[in-house]
Structures are given as C-alpha cells and as structure tokens.
C-alpha cells in the first residue's frame, strides 16, 4: 500500500523539525538547517509547486512558533527559498554534485535573507557572536547533506525507484 504523498512530506518535515531542535540544537560544531534542506529538496519532487510553497511557509511558521524570533520570519524566508528552488531546479537535475551545490547556494540565500529580514524587523539576536561562521557553516552542512540525501529524498517522496539515479 502506497502512503499519501502529503502524509510522507508532513512526517519528513516533522522529523526534520524535531531532529533540528534536539540533535542539532545541542551539537554546536555541525549546524545544518534541516527544515530548510527539506523545503529545498521538495522542489525536486513531482509535488505541485503551489503545495511546495505552502509546505515551505507552514514549516517556517512552525519553526518560528517553536523559537523566540518573530512569527512569520522563517515562513517568508522558507517560502522565498522554495520559490527560487522551483525556478532553478533544472540546474540540480544533472547529478549529485549539482544537487549538493544547488542546495548549498539556496541555503546561503536563505540564511542571508533570514539575517537581513530579521535585522529589518529588529531581531538583532540573529546577529549573534557567531553570525559570520553560521552564514558559512549552515550552507556547507546543507550542501553535504543535500548531496547525500537529495536523491534518496526524491525517490522516497515520489515513490519512484528510478528518480534521480545519475549515470
């Protein structure tokens, strides 16, 4: 029996949120943004673009609600990153390395947007002592995870064993 795509996506997003706040919330040396990674990778699946944007916005809202920053900040950032991902996904569909690079660049755009919009709305705590390191480390961590997990993620969500099998 094949599970509904929406349920798979919701489960993966919940898993990403929980792992982000528990595991990666405590390891300071490795700092990916799992939720942003899932949002970006959703663009590579066959899910309707409108639903990808909606899922991105909602997952950003959940992260905002769990934290102390402004409600809607990550929702805007994740939705914007998802939109850019949808518009540029052909660049990633050529190989695993391309997927990794594409994820890394989009995450970089995401964290820069997060810091910029957050600062505009007075969230100076986003500009903590490690902001420069984080702006580099988070995209790098997502780049590595994107390269490793991207194709598997697409196959899992689309239920296709042949998707993203690069020659």
């Amino acid at each position: 029996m094949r599970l509904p795509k929406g349920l798979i996506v919701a489960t993966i997003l919940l898993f990403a949120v929980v792992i982000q706040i528990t595991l990666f919330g405590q390891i300071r040396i490795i700092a990916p943004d799992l939720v942003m990674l899932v949002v970006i990778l959703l663009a590579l699946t066959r899910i309707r673009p409108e639903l990808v944007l909606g899922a991105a916005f909602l997952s950003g809202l959940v992260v905002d609600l769990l934290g102390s920053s402004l409600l809607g900040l990550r929702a805007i950032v994740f939705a914007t990153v998802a939109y850019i991902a949808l518009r540029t996904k052909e660049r990633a569909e050529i190989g695993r390395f391309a997927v990794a690079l594409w994820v890394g660049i989009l995450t970089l755009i995401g964290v820069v947007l997060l810091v910029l919009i957050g600062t505009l709305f007075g969230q100076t705590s986003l500009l903590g002592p490690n902001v420069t390191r984080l702006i580099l480390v988070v995209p790098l961590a997502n780049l590595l995870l994107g390269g490793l997990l991207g194709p598997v993620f697409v196959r899992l969500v689309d239920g296709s064993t042949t998707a993203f099998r690069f020659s």
Partner: protein
Amino acid sequence: MVNREPRGHTLPLLVSLIILGVLLMTFDVRLQGGGVVGVLRTGTQTIIAPVQQAASYAVNPVADMIDSLSNLSNLREENIALRRELAEAEASLVGVQDQLARLEHLEQLYGMEAAGDEIGRTVANVIGRPDAFDAALIIDKGTSDGVVVGQPVVDTNGYVVGTVRSVTRGSATIVPITADRQALTVMVGDQIGSLLSQVATDEMRLEILTAREPVLVGDEVLTSAVSASFPAGLPVGVVIEDAAPSIDVLNAKVDLFVKPDTLRLVVVLAWPPDPITASSGETILPAETSTTSTTTEGDGS
C-alpha cells in the same frame, strides 16, 4: 538556466505568502508575543513537546558524544582545572563547616533562626534549540513543575541566563538576556544602569544614565532591586573596560558569566515568590512582569 516554463500561480502565491508573513511579523511586534500569537506558540509547543522529549532521550547521548569528541582537547584542560578547583573547594569547605557549626551554636545561644532562601528552584535540562540562528533554549520542565512565564532563569552557579518566554505543560522556552529585546536593569557598585545586547558579539553594553563615578575593569554587574524580572543581587557579568561618565552618561562593555549556547542545565527561579494566579487556567503570571498568558514584557523597569 532559470526555468522559463509557465509559472502558474506560484508567483502570486509567493507574494501573498510574503504579505501574510509580514502581517504576522507586524502582529507579533505589536502584540509583543502575546495574544493570538502567544496562544499559537503555546499550542505548537504543546503538540511538539512530547515528540521532542522522546527524541531528546535518543539523541542526547549522540549529541553529548559528538560534542565531547569535538572538544576533546578543551575537556582535558577543563578536567585539570576542575581537579584544582575541587581541591581548593574541599579545603575551603572545611573552613565553612567550622563557621556553620559556630553559627548554629550562636543561633541556639540567642534563640535565633536564620531566614531561609524562600525562592523555589526548578532544575531543568536543556533539550533543544530552535535553530542555529535562534538563541532560545527549550527546557524539559513546564507548568506541571511550577514553571510559569516571566520567571527568571539562572545556571547552576546562580549566574543570570534569561527569562521564561513561553511554557507548556512539560516544556518551556527560555530567552537568554543576550537575545532579549528588553534591557536588563542592573547594579554596579551603588549605581543603577541598563544592560543591552549588542550586534555580532556576546558582550553586552552597560549604560548608566545618571552616572556619578567611573566603573572599572573587574567590577561585578548584579541584578538590581529595581528590576521587575529578576531578584536583586544575582551575578550577571563583569565590566571588561574602564569607563568614566561623559556628562552624566556612562557606557561600558560587560562580559557575561554565562554563555547560553553551552548550557545543558538551568535553574528556573520561582520569583516573585508570591505570583498572581491568572484567571486563564493553569498559567500563573509573575506580578508586574506580564500582561499576557505567554509572554513577558521584559524587564519592565
């Protein structure tokens, strides 16, 4: 190459979502985290908390192992320093025990009873952080353990960490003073000032508006009795540069005793000791600090 296929409804949808996001941010700023936003926050945290706690049991050992491996050299040095401190502490403990025995003897002699520490303490584990850019800490104690919104939080040494921002039955979110938009009212010597967070550094800025005398390197910064959010006399940090008043305003840099991102254990203080019971149910609000069920107005002083 950018996708030139028909975009369908994605662009209008994105614009709508951005507008909705900006509206939500504006609401959050206007309501200062309270009202509907506060209810939403508490609701989401209540739903996620059980999953999060279950996950933290599984991932905590992994996190500890990775963290320890990455800090192996630091741990060795820390271990040596801790052994030295332990030896010193054991030596001074003997002296303290002597003094306590004398105190007890004198109390009996004069029929006195020392006033106890009336502030209740709830020790809690830090079980998560929302993401790399959010300084908030999530702890494993909530309303069922007596934690309420606005209560002050210190580390195990009694150094100031922050305040409880929102709380569910089994978890709470702590906002460290470094990430708080509100200034903290503090005391240096007999001068009262405000401690403000700064951009791209974990140092804070001390501002005394009616300064009479300079502050010097090493001066301890304590919470003030004027503060509505913290009991008086809790250690916050230390002044790291000499500063003299300019006209009557003084600005100095302060290094905090606590680095919030390294905390694994915190202590929530039941302060003020006699909170007002809220009519909304199980949430109890500390007097003077909050007007909503989920957020605090900050220092409010």
